[in-house]
């Protein structure tokens, strides 16, 4: 697919001397929801960090046809890649609304005038945030913090939103609600979504395509329908699929 919003070709990432991604080919189309599955240490977080340019990489990476390989993290964010990091990364001493406004400061030029409307839309998507807008973000519960982190990233009006383990540490009920909201985001905010997620069952339900990572390589990829029987995933998680065994990872 050469019409992709985001394309990576033979993407290699390393932390110091440890190579974590061994050549990833990935393509995401506009408006698509892609889920990244794989066991702990498969390289999901690193792939997201590589896409948002906060970890050094080799190989090609393009956003809407433009090579972003040499860009800084800040520049990449301004170009329309939103990233909700592992652990959410909210600013605990800032209020909920300050966190959201900060997200709005990163938006591309020409979209600045709609900040107020977008803030209202975030509050409509996550009503609980509106009730707590004056509260310090550090006082929110885990689920509320996750909503805040997603809302904050949306305020930048991303073309592509990366979300790292949204269900981590959340109660099953909260996770369920969160995924319902995520399913609606692409329509309401016209963005593509790349989710790194351990909860395969829920994420396969909302995604169009799944990519399975193991040992820093793509071991399976395709429409989510192909993964519904769980077989491919089970093999990937147990390290039986093509590629390196799970023990090989960082």
């Amino acid at each position, binding site marked *: 697919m050469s019409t992709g919003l985001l394309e990576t070709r033979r993407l290699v990432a390393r932390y110091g001397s440890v190579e974590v991604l061994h050549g990833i080919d990935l393509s995401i189309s506009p408006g698509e929801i892609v889920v990244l599955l794989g066991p702990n240490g498969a390289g999901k977080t690193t792939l997201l960090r590589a896409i948002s340019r906060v970890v050094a990489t080799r190989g090609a990476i393009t956003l809407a046809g433009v090579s972003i390989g040499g860009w800084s993290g800040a520049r990449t964010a301004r170009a329309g890649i939103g990233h909700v990091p592992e652990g959410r990364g909210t600013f605990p*001493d800032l209020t909920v609304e300050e966190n959201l406004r900060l997200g709005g400061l990163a938006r591309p030029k020409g979209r600045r005038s709609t900040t107020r409307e977008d803030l209202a839309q975030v509050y409509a998507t996550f009503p609980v945030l509106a009730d707590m807008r004056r509260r310090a973000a550090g006082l929110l519960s885990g689920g509320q913090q996750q909503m805040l982190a997603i809302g904050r990233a949306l305020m930048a009006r991303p073309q592509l939103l990366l979300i790292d383990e949204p269900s981590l*540490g959340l109660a099953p009920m909260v996770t369920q609600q969160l995924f319902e909201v995520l399913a609606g985001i692409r329509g309401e905010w016209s963005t593509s979504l790349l989710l790194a997620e351990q909860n395969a069952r829920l994420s396969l339900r909302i995604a169009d395509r799944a990519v399975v990572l193991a040992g820093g390589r793509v071991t399976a990829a395709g429409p989510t329908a192909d993964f519904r029987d769980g077989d491919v995933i089970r093999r990937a998680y147990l390290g039986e699929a093509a590629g390196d065994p799970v023990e090989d990872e960082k």
Partner: protein
Amino acid sequence: MTELLQQVLDGLSTGLVYGMLALALSVIFQGTGMLNFSQGEMATLSAYVTLVLTQAGVGFWVALPLTVALSAGGGALIERVLVRRLEGAGELSLLTLSVALLLGLNALMSIIWTTDPRTFPSPFGKGLIEFAGLHMTVQQAGSLITLLAVMAATALLFNRTSVGLRLRAVAQNPASATLLGQHQGLWLMVGWAVAAAVGAFAAVVAAPVLTLSPGMMAFPLLLALAAGTLGGLSSRVGAVVGGVLIGIADNLASRYVPGLGRDLAIVAPFALTALVVMLRPAGLFGKTRTVRV
């Protein structure tokens, strides 16, 4: 009673200096997350700049904004040239750098201006203000107004502008701020510039009272650090109140505690600080960070 109030007022002379310097420390702490030991020497350098400008015939009220602008530029330069090399090297390295800066700036000033103390005329004049049997120098009154104005300006900057929002965000969580499109280096540089500008005001408040020499701020810096501990470095108001309280406690102890005298009285504010920290570890106004996980 009048006597006691007068002693409190007299304590303001030094208290305002400590408060102002503590404000600069608090600003850089909130704007960059760093404790800067060289803040005092940076302020002293600003005072010399003002002196050079006024001796060259520039009027004080023109020299002051010039000094503030030059100091801000100097602060930004220090960040860009020195601090940025240590990006990601950890707090201990930054602390060491700030001590190195303290020594380096002090040596630089001694080379250029010698260590001889110089008189620095009060920009506010020499008069006394008298009311209800109390008196206060014009310098004290001017310092107080300056301090309140700078506090108000920094409060506006930090709480009401997007610049302040970015500064706080980068200081609190640089990784997250980057993911939101904020250039970490740029905003740390701005944080240094703002703190250096506040330091320039501290210099103007301090120099007429302490007489200007390269080591002028060495002792006030210690007390400003104590003030930050007493009031809470994470709160600008707390740092200022801490500084003023320390000046007042010092003066009251030298007057009323038998056997202490002028030189030993300084134990009193430190005792006060120790007591407060035992009861409230984050200081009088400090925020203990509450985070739910």
